């Protein structure tokens, strides 16, 4: 009778962290499964590309140019997706292209995420003039047309993969900053932040122990959107000839190189295009699922 303190879910020493609960819920979410499987498959393909194809994606063999894919007339299993105008195996290019597309997206999001989160937390936690300054930067950034700025920078300095990563990373932090800023503002009102200050916590402790873990939900969602964004941006820049440069290969570059063949060999543009669509679709599915499971409305 005196057990005034038995918990609602009663007795059982269940103590899953909120993150684990969200993850658990994610695994019951259809979109998370579908999207996650596709992304995982693409990541595995990117990692194990050398094992999946005997060809080097950049070795040319002019005599074997424009071999049609296996389903077309004259196609063969030797080159399942055929070859391009320079006789490079198209499947190999697709597999290796996944490496650049994914790796570049991840690295840019790490850069932009770090910048945006730092700015957002600073603005949201301190408010006042730091907030005004950071808001100014966000506004300035929002007035810049991303593709044009990236084009100009790449055109002026010259194109390299690392420059591309840096440029995209330095351009895509705006959404991180905006979302993190408003999430931090809300948290800063919470009494546990005041409590943390009252127990003498240092500012870094408050930022990293109290605030950061509680904004991972929105952070992960924004990150998924921005990865998709970065992949598309890279594809666009490559398409315009200022992105990934041969002999490197990315899906965007493949689309760009195939554009001349649009009317004659449509699969050359359709295959990397479809790969891009599939990847972006999967990332968005996962992003949606993460948003579903991290919003409080979804709580049991």
């Amino acid at each position, binding site marked *: 009778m005196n057990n005034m303190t*038995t918990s609602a879910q009663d007795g059982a020493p269940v103590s899953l962290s909120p993150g684990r609960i969200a993850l658990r819920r994610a695994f019951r979410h259809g979109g998370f499964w579908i999207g996650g499987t596709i992304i995982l498959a693409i990541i595995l393909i990117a990692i194990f590309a050398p094992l999946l194809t005997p060809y080097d994606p950049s070795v040319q063999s002019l005599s074997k140019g424009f071999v049609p894919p296996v389903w077309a007339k004259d196609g063969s299993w030797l080159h399942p997706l055929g070859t391009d105008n320079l006789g490079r195996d198209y499947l190999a290019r697709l597999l290796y292209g996944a490496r650049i597309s994914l790796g570049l997206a991840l690295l840019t999001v790490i850069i932009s995420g770090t910048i945006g989160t730092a700015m957002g937390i600073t603005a949201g936690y301190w408010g006042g003039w730091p907030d005004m300054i950071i808001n100014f930067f966000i506004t300035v950034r929002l007035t810049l047309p991303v593709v044009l700025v990236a084009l100009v920078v790449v055109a002026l300095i010259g194109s390299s993969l690392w420059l591309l990563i840096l440029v995209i990373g330095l351009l895509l932090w705006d959404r991180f900053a905006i979302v993190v800023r408003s999430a931090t503002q809300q948290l800063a009102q919470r009494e546990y932040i005041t409590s943390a200050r009252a127990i003498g916590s240092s500012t870094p402790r408050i930022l990293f122990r109290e605030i950061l873990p509680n904004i991972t939900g929105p952070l992960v969602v924004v990150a998924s959107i921005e990865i998709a964004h970065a992949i598309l941006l890279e594809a666009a820049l490559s398409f315009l000839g200022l992105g990934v440069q041969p002999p490197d290969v990315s899906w965007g570059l493949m689309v760009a190189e195939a554009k001349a063949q649009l009317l004659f060999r449509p699969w050359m543009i359709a295959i990397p295009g479809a790969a891009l669509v599939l990847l972006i679709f999967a990332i968005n599915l996962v992003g949606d699922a993460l948003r579903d499971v991290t919003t409080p409305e979804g709580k049991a």
Partner: protein
Amino acid sequence: MPNDTQILNVQGLSVQIPVHGSMLRPVRDVNLEVGRGETVAVVGESGCGKSLTALAIMGLLPRQAMVQSDALRLNSESLAQASPKRWRQLRGDQIAMIFQDPMTALDPCYRIGNQMCEILQQHRKISRTDAMARSRDLLGKVGIPAPEERLKQYPHQLSGGLRQRVMIAMALLCEPELIIADEPTTALDVTIQAQILRLLRDIQQETNIGLLLITHDLGVVAGMADRIVVMYGGQVVEVGTCDQVLAQPLHPYTEGLVRSIPVPGETEQGETLGYIPGIVPRQVGELSACGFVDRCPYATDICHAKSIPMRDADNARLMRCILPTDGSARDPAVWVLPDETTAQGAATHGSTPCPKF
């Protein structure tokens, strides 16, 4: 004061809500009657189902909630099968609702006058000028100074007390027969609370409407209600007149509640207060025992064995408990339990009895 004309008659109201695969039953078999000119208070703690009951009566529960009732009658019109269109006609016209937080219940984008006129014009054939005039009169009636100017203001320009007065005026616009007030003063300061309660009661007595007051605050109930309906775990556990229930609570839950509240002038400073041990259980599945059994200091084997039906007690009261109906066999000391874990230091004053009243 309550006469025989019933405005609201609810019999066997149940609400079920599917949540993550299981079926929550936050309201089980609730009976409620409100007469003309009567104030009925539905009392209970958070999660007892009182607010959902109110929303079910207003037809405002979300689609996924399954509402069943044997009877849901407003003025002898059965609403159990009413169409959404009929509900919209009734709401704001014959039944009006006053919410806890007037800031969120008023639309911040529209002037007070616009919001009031819209309600009137939706339910009555009335010109805008007349609607404005009536709105202004009502604002004056609920004690708002300079009503003419308030009509042109936005909700954020008013203080909390004024906003709640506006809500009351809006509820009165179409001369409803029943007002449901869900925690009308919980968001307000104590001195403002007294004003608003007084206003509500005066208006109710003047217009002879029925008032269904949903609250957790037994003090508010004591000041306002004619009858009390105590809810626990989705069930009504006790019904009686206000004075009966407060002076001699029959159900152990009510008894525990009444004994856990400090009252200046009655309880001594620092006196160990009674409390109800345990917490409210989740409302899932059919009840196979008394809903209160885990927290009840009087619980017996019978209470664990079967669900307890409502039964008549003396003086036209109802209780859902097997204890004697005359209130005997109660012991105030059972509520003053030593807090088990602080007991080592606090045992010395653990048995101060609660005052008799």
